[in-house]
């Protein structure tokens, strides 16, 4: 049991070790909705504060880094794989090659009535860009 707890504690830490929290917070704070968005951070090891309005899970508009599925809420997951699999997630934040990867799916944002400032356009992918087959078709 202890091992499981240790693994459960260390793994998220390892996954997010080196994550550029400032960059994450700044990007999330630029997601616009009909009202001021509130966030629930399921991973307490990532200290998202300051610009973001953090609330409880029940009142949050967007749930961050949760391993569970929240059908009624927009979620931001912690891996590219989860982003592809979980159509309810609007984006993913994770580390790859030492770099903080922040990805949002345009169609999913639109469906939730959310948008992101144009200056973050490099972080926005289209749904088809998550699909390998579609990508292969686009290859020269």
């Amino acid at each position, binding site marked *: 049991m202890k091992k499981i707890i240790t693994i459960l504690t260390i793994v998220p830490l390892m996954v997010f070790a080196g994550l550029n929290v400032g960059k994450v917070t700044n990007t999330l704070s630029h997601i616009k909705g009909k009202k001021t968005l509130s966030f629930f951070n399921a991973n307490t090891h990532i200290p998202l504060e300051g610009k973001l309005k953090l609330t409880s899970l029940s009142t949050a508009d967007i749930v961050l880094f949760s391993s569970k599925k929240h059908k009624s809420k927009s979620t931001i997951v912690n891996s590219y794989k989860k982003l592809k699999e979980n159509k309810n997630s609007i984006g993913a934040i994770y580390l790859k090659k030492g770099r903080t990867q922040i990805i949002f799916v345009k169609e999913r944002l639109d469906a939730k009535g959310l948008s992101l400032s144009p200056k973050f356009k490099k972080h926005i992918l289209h749904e088809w860009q998550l699909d390998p087959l579609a990508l*292969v078709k686009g*290859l020269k």
Partner: protein
Amino acid sequence: MNKINFFNNNRIYFYVIIAYAILFYLFLSTYKDLIPFEDKAKHILLNEAISLVDDTTSNILESMVKEDVSFLHSNSNDEELRFENEKLLSMMNSTDINSLFVVYVIKGKYFFLLDTDTKDHADLHQAFIPENNKVFSQVVKGKKKKVFIQNEVKDLSFTLLKPIVQNGETVALLVIDYTENRLTSLLNISVKALSYLLILFLAFVFAFLFYIIYTHYNKYKIYRNPQTNTFNRIYMIENYEKIDFKKYYVALADIDFFKRINNRYGQKNGDKVIIAVIKIIARRLEKCDKLIQYSGEEFLLLIAKDARNEYELRKLLDDIRIDINRAIFDIENEKVSLSISMGVLLNTGIEKSLQDVIHKADTALYESKHNGRDKVSYFDISQPKKLYREKLKDMIESDKLVCYYQPIRSLEDKTLHHYEALLRIEDGDNIIFPDKILPDLEDSYLYTNLTKRVIEYNVAKLKEDKKMRISINLSADDLVNDAILSILAQNADLADRLLIEILENKSIDYKKVELSIQKLKLFGYKICIDDFGSGYSNLNHLLKLSIDYLKIDGSIIKEIHHDKRAYSIVKTFATFCKQNDIEVIAEFIDKQDVVDILKSFGVKYGQGWYFSKAQPYEDLDKDHK
């Protein structure tokens, strides 16, 4: 004002400050360019560092990319090929390389194609958001490799981007991330260290500059009279060796009868007069000349030989003399005229020291004073008379100065009361008496030096011989001289055996003298008026002084037994003194008849050949009876 003068007179500091400002500006410019410089330097070094990897990867990529087969299609569709290619690329991995992967680009977005990383392996077609999109785009468009410093990604030092070009188009990018290595660490440290060192160096230069200016300014303040900006004696003493006197004609100037100004109008007004005189002199001088306030009213003029010939010098000094002579000094609503005497040495080139030069100028100055003042005299080595004064100076400053002692005895029982110390100068076998030298020294700083020497000589005698009591002669000018008063104050423990005899002169300021007498009496000194009746003294002035003894002048005493007027005068003085508790001393007593008359007047003490001549200390009765 002093500071402005300082910088005006020391232009070198202007230049130093300007130089420092330029240096500071250069530093700021350099500092501004330091970051680009650092990047450039890093790029050069990084290109050097990646050269080996660059060459090898070029070869690998060449083998991987085939002209007729789409690189992207073949790799995304053929897992085996992808595996082979990843294997090929992974040969490049080393401890310096953190990750090595290939991404392709579609509509400005990047996706993984190949990844050599086993731990943090990216999936095929997984999106990749580069931290520096701009550089990635540049490589795609430019088709040229690029190395950039990794500022955003922790643990990475730099990244090499190599375009994979097929059919003239960039189809993918090979990304090689380098870990933080010694090269970049060293580069970071060295550039930062360089800037810190530069700051430190500039701070040190500034502190050093400030120290030099501050020190020089302090010296300047010490060396200069703040009101006239002329050099003072301290400057000369401290720069004796540095002043190249051979480049100058040297003149010593002295305001005639200046003591009278001081005595009559006070020192404050005296100082104002000195400032006015300095300004008159300075007006005529060039920048290359030097004006030094040698002592209170004595000035040393160093006139640059480069600026004037002898004829022009003579004219200049005469002009100065005439300027001062014509000037009217307004002192307390009184119009006062002054004159100045000068002594000049033209041929300074043959002299060994500045002291010798001043000595000779002073000898010439003496000549001016001796010949009626308000004159400029030039030192002429052929005249032995002028050298006499020089010799006199040497004698005063050497051990040739001695005192002879004449006893002052009770007229009643002839017991010794004290000795009067009488100045003598032993010049070989000759003994020089004070009346031969004092007129020559009048109004000169040598006179004060002489008095100091006499006091010191007798203080030493009193310390040596505890039974001895001595009286010394001081002029009224000596009594108002702070240096003399200070010596007497320092030796107040001898006050009960050291009596002060005051010599009269015509410029005596009774108020000041009385003030000094009061000070001396507080120390315990007894005061005696010497040679009373010889000159300008009168009973009215006498009443103003708190004296203990009055010595009647010998010229009256020696006439007492055959001149009725002398007889009456002495009798009147004696009566007056008796009524005012002043003891009377008679001098020049040469016979018993005189003693008898004096005793009848109530005169208590006497001196003269009748009792004893003045003798050297060695010949005195050591019991002092």
